[in-house]
């Protein structure tokens, strides 16, 4: 992609109207260490213009109880709404036997699709986990089915051949037996983390972090089930800035922290 092509497409990007592959191409160009012809400035101009469009929507009085609900959520308190928040959704999702059966089916489909794509694009193969890794992940999801904690999002991601599997394990010196896998798909800007063997969080919380360029961004509280397993989908917005370097989990005071207060006890590095 040339700078001219970038500047032609950046307007649709600001409107979030590009297809995932187009968006990825745009971001790759912006990250290229070349002498850009005003690409960053044009991106910022486009973003400001898109933001301006919101002004045509009339401002509306929010519900009187809006702040109390927000306050409860930032404090880690329960939602008063009976509706399930779609994102971030850190409570483990119950999964039915049907979903578990779908896991096996999706895996077979993913494998078939993966094989076809391999023949077409060798580059994509680098993003795929090894067969054994996927098999282990599938088995992990099967195990989670038994504890009603598997998450459909994980199954859906596993189906995609471009999903990268990132092993999460104890950091040096932590002696933790916890382990897990992050399913990361940068084309879709989606990631799901599967952790097992977390002990119950009493008087503390496990907090997930997305780390990029040395900066840790909170990605949600992990609430393990009785069997110590948890599946958590990472907010897509946290992946908009590019591929994370690391996924990590720390122990934090109840409700979590805006920045880590302890060293990660498990972490997984994302291979570029």
């Amino acid at each position, binding site marked *: 992609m040339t700078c001219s092509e970038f500047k032609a497409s950046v307007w*649709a990007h600001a409107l979030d109207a590009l297809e995932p592959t187009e968006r990825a191409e745009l971001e790759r160009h912006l990250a290229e260490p070349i002498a850009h012809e005003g690409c960053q400035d044009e991106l910022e101009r486009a973003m400001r213009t898109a933001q301006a469009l919101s002004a045509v929507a009339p401002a509306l*009085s929010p519900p009187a109880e809006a702040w109390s609900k*927000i306050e409860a959520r930032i404090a880690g308190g329960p939602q008063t709404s009976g509706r399930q928040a779609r994102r971030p959704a850190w409570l483990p999702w119950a999964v039915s036997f049907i979903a578990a059966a779908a896991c096996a089916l999706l895996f077979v489909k993913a494998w078939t699709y993966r094989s076809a794509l391999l023949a077409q694009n060798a580059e994509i193969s680098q993003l795929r986990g090894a067969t054994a890794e996927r098999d282990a992940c599938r088995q992990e999801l099967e195990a989670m089915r038994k504890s009603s904690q598997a998450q459909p999002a994980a199954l859906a991601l596993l189906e995609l051949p471009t999903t990268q599997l990132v092993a999460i394990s104890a950091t040096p010196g932590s002696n933790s037996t916890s382990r897990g896998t992050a399913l990361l798909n940068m084309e879709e800007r989606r990631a799901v983390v599967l952790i097992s063997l977390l002990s119950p969080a009493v008087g503390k919380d496990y907090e997930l972090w997305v780390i990029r360029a040395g900066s840790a961004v909170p990605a949600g509280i992990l609430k393990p089930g009785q069997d110590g397993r948890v599946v958590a989908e990472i907010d897509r917005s946290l992946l908009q800035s590019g591929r994370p370097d690391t996924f990590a989990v720390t122990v934090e005071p109840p409700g979590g922290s805006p920045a880590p207060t302890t060293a990660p006890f498990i972490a997984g590095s994302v291979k570029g």
Partner: protein
Amino acid sequence: MNPRSAPAHSAADRRLLDRVIGGDAEALRAITDRCSARAFGIAQQILRARPDAEEILQETFLEVWKRAREFDPARGSVEGWVVTIARSRSIDRLRARGAAARTRESDPSSSMSQAAPPPLEAAERREARERVGAALKALPVEQREVLQLAYFEGLSQSEIAARLAQPLGTVKTRVRLGMEKLAGLLAEPEVLR
């Protein structure tokens, strides 16, 4: 928004955001007070369902709480950033509903009470709304149409092409020309007066 017309309270918003980064919930409340009417308005405009818009409002400020350090002043104001988050989450929810549910229904916002912000803010919002509305009206109708489909209905260029039965290249050209012209018009507010 055109930086030259950015509200005077942008600097105050950024100071509040700095406090949010430090974990100050009261600062988040102040930002919520300032920005929730526009965030709720855009969510309602896109989703056309008050319960959904209320959930999006919560998710928006939860995201502000978590991602405050990611705010980039080069890309607009704090309020613009908040509204962008609300819009993105609303579009995500709209997409999750499926294409069939995207068809626009009657505008329920007409039966909802309008926010009653302080007079200065009300004036600023009215000015911004009129200015952007005038700029949109100044665009050729086919360019305005694609921008509205992309921004308020969350359609990709491919989806717009399918919706309008137009070649994808035509839609891409309309999006680019429309946005470039809109940016130019918003940078020269006096032209619209």
